[in-house]
């Protein structure tokens, strides 16, 4: 497929890692505007704050304040089209979800909550 509709098929699409595990959604698309050349997609973002910013700067600030509790480095998580391995209903990228920045909340919750409650294993 040579042509892609960014809004229809890329934005807000589920992103999977190389093991087909959910990584997040495409929350943002960065376009590089160039002189004399058509704009190109610089990278795609998977980040909650980016998503909330689409509602307004106020929401982004609130989301960022919340996210500071669990976010380590690597935010916002970005990937380029070169890292895309498969593209259909979902976008599969050549990354390990467990090690990627969007999983910080997952790791934080595992530590704080799940570990402390029996049966969570």
């Amino acid at each position, binding site marked *: 497929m040579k042509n892609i509709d960014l809004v229809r098929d890329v934005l807000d699409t589920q992103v999977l890692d190389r093991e087909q595990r959910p990584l997040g959604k495409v929350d943002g698309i960065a376009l590089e505007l160039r002189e004399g050349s058509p704009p190109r997609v610089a990278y795609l973002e998977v980040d909650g704050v980016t998503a909330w910013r689409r509602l307004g700067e106020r929401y982004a600030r609130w989301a960022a304040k919340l996210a500071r509790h669990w976010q380590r480095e690597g935010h916002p998580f970005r990937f380029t089209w070169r890292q895309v391995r498969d593209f259909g209903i979902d976008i599969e990228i050549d990354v390990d979800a467990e090690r990627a920045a969007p999983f910080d909340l997952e790791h934080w919750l595992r530590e704080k909550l799940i570990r402390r409650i029996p049966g969570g*294993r």
Partner: protein
Amino acid sequence: MKKILGIALGIVTSIGGFLDVGSIATSAQAGAAFGYSLLWAVLLGTICVIFLVEMSGRFSIVSGHTIVDAIRKRFGFAGFIVPFAASLLVNLLVLASELGGICVALQLLTGIRFQVWAIPVALAVWLLLWLGTFDVVEDGTALFGLVTLCFLVAVFTLGPEPRELAAGFVPRLPGEEHAHYLFLAVSIIGATIAPYLFLFYSSGAIEDKWDKSYITPNRYIATLGMSFGAIISMAVIVVAALALKPEGIRVEEYEQAALMLVPAFGRWGFYLFVASLAIACFGAALELSLASAYSVSQAFGWNWGEDLEPRSAARFSSAYTIFIALAALIVLSGLNPMKLTLFSMAITAVILPLTALPFLVLMNDARYMGEHVNSHFSNIVVLLIVLLAAILAVVAIPLEIIGSK
């Protein structure tokens, strides 16, 4: 053979899962106050929910998406966030009603005030989700939910007049109490067409990995399951009409509703009612909590699944944990469980278009549905019923509030 078993299980699950605190409360009040004359509301709601549930299954089968995931993808984050937030809020109120239902059942049994049971009950619901799997939840709900068949047995025992029964299927305003009648009609429809039902169904289809061979079984499960479930709802109305209305017993509290099975079963009738209430609400509470966690996870692209251990899906598990905790707080606050239930159902009817309309758009989008897009007939049926319910609700809720002051 396996498919037939699957269909049977799906139907049984739908029956067992159909009755919840909303159906019981609204049907009991309706029968006690207005006899058979609100049966049409259950029928209308059921027709709509059959379409919605079938569509929900068909959508997940053909598109490979869950509904929530697809709504975000189709309408964008900002476009979907308001329906999403609204549906979560309503889910919370309904979950509090379901937990309240279990607590009230325990209060009826033991005499201990319902608020005291809030935390133990919430813990029990949570524990089952924490340690159980999707199949355990589904099958357990289905099996135990069959106790609600006692209402059907009661109908046969009490023997209603068929012609009088049939008249109940024609909408007709009663002589008095128009506002309350309308409010109950709207609440019944809201109780029947609970959005969490068809959203949960879509997640279930994905979790069970339904492929295109399930398109026809899906139709049977949706139609038969919801129909049988509706029959039980109608049975509650009929039993209330026969057992409570002649005695002039109005169902303002669950205590009065609990009397309705006594004429048919004697003393056991009370215990059957309590058991039905507790079990139906427990099953619904499990489904609601899961449905809400599914919604949040699918909206943000997290890993989700009841079959995953909490440690592997910490965000998903935390979501239902927080949800159950918040609902328990609402029950603890001591809000009248019956009133909370009725209003939650009416509010559901108001919010229904917010979820159903985007879903309808998806069902007509060839990029998701291919050749399996909706027929005009399906569109019209769902559209009419959903809009009707919403308009009625917007009118009826304020009138009910004014009326009860």
